[in-house]
């Protein structure tokens, strides 16, 4: 025969001695151990250097000859591709560049009035810049956030191409990044 009282007592002890965790923890990590948390990077360009502040989870990559720099922007399903290019002078009209980007996401070119509707003006360290959010809702695997700084002697293009949800998730980061761009003398 079984001693049921003993058996029940044993399992009650096991049950109530487990899982007393209140699920709130506190700990500290030295700021030095955080590594490259907020990166401030520098790229040479003639006698000026371009500076920016980026989120710590963007991975800087190089290798594109046309680009000043590229970043891999993490998404839940992979990475978005962010690039900065700088060209002397005007480097084509705004319309031709926007239409080129529209083509990259499978949309047909637009006329000036339609492009004006897509354009937002924002202010950054370098002054005013044009901001574009280009989405093809029929093909959401590719969408573009872009910014154009038209300076006295150069035009700077910042473009993030990624899947639509990734784009939205990174829109604020992208805007802050564009706003943080500055040119300083070497």
């Amino acid at each position, binding site marked *: 025969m*079984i001693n049921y009282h003993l058996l029940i007592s044993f399992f009650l002890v096991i049950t109530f001695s487990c899982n007393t965790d209140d699920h709130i923890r506190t*700990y500290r990590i030295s700021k030095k151990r955080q590594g490259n948390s907020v990166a401030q990077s520098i790229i040479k360009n003639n006698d000026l250097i371009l500076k920016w502040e980026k989120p710590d989870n963007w991975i800087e990559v190089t290798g594109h000859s046309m680009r000043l720099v590229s970043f891999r922007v993490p998404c839940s399903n992979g990475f978005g591709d962010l690039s900065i290019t700088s060209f002397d002078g005007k480097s084509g009209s705004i319309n031709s560049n926007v239409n080129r980007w529209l083509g990259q996401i499978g949309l047909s070119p637009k006329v000036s009035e339609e492009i004006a509707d897509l354009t937002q003006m924002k202010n950054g360290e370098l002054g005013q810049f044009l901001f574009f959010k280009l989405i093809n809702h029929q093909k959401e695997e590719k969408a573009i956030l872009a910014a154009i700084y038209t300076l006295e002697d150069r035009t700077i293009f910042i473009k993030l191409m990624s899947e639509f949800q990734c784009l*939205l998730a990174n829109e*604020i980061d992208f805007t802050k990044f564009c706003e943080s761009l500055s040119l300083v003398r070497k």
Partner: protein
Amino acid sequence: MIKRLLQIITSPQVFVYTLIWLMILVFFGTITQKDIGLYAAQLKYFSSYYFIFSDVIPLPGGRLVLIIMTINLFSSFFKNYLWKIKKIGIIIIHVGGLLLLIGGGITAAFSSEGNMVIEEGNVASHVDDYHDMELALVNTSLDDSLEYTIFDAPLLKDGNSINYKKFDIEIDIISYIKNVRIENRISPADSIYKGFLGEFVLLSQLPEKENEQNRPGLIYKITGSNNKDDGIYGSFLGQGLKDTLIIDDNRYFLEFRRKRRNLPFSIELLDFKKVMHPGTNIAKSYSSEIHLIEDKIPRRVLIQMNEPLRHRGYTFYQASFIDGLEKETTVLAVVKNYGRLFPYISSIIMSVGLLLHLLISLPKMIKKKI
């Protein structure tokens, strides 16, 4: 009533029924995995106390069946007829079986799985869980350190209210979203919506089959910080720019992330190598040369496919990689399993028990034959 229930649970027939039911669960769990994904199938059939079959019939899940099985096996030690010298083999087999079940329980309750993503030249000292999430409130106002206050996944359930006395704040969980979809706000947001939710909305969308592909999100209300920052916040996995708030003149940011386990040592990725199948982009083998840094002393170790690093109860497997143009990034699968040795030990014990029982029964069997 309880005595009657225990009588049923502890009867030897129940052990046989639970064994058959486990086989049925394994069969259906394996079949369903194709449709609902591995993680969901595991949760539904094996990690649950019960599950609903065809939206109507509640049936016992793997966890409940294993608990009944453990009670059943354990209760056999309280039965007087077992405690005889000629049944020593059977006692040992029962001990082995019970150890196997206890090991399974320990693995289910305390083990963790996750991954570690390290870029070449970088050092990491934490593991991100594959499935569990946490909300972190990070104090950035301290001079030399960041102070993390972590609210674990069990607290982040719809309608739950977290009253955290240390800061005198209350966090009300409005919605935990398994797979979030982000949309722009059509009209300006009410002032109660703070940070990211001021410009966007987080909507729920159908979860992906494989849980790792989902982007979980959390909508929650904070009260008691200060009047300006009290309001509704929204965070999601992979959010770059975190929402911030001021509590007692300290600046905090909010991060919704995979549950993080800090390791008592660090790993620095020195070099990542991959060998491709000729003429393809398919990796044949890959390996990570690392520095295992403990007490500031680095030790060089090579982790490669089928040759994991085992250290202080953790096992690091070479799982994947991320290609970079200049630097590569390794992905290590990290497992800490406290019940790892139980199957080996219990198998040995059960083998010894079976052998002993055979030896004890052998003279009787020979006698019968003669």
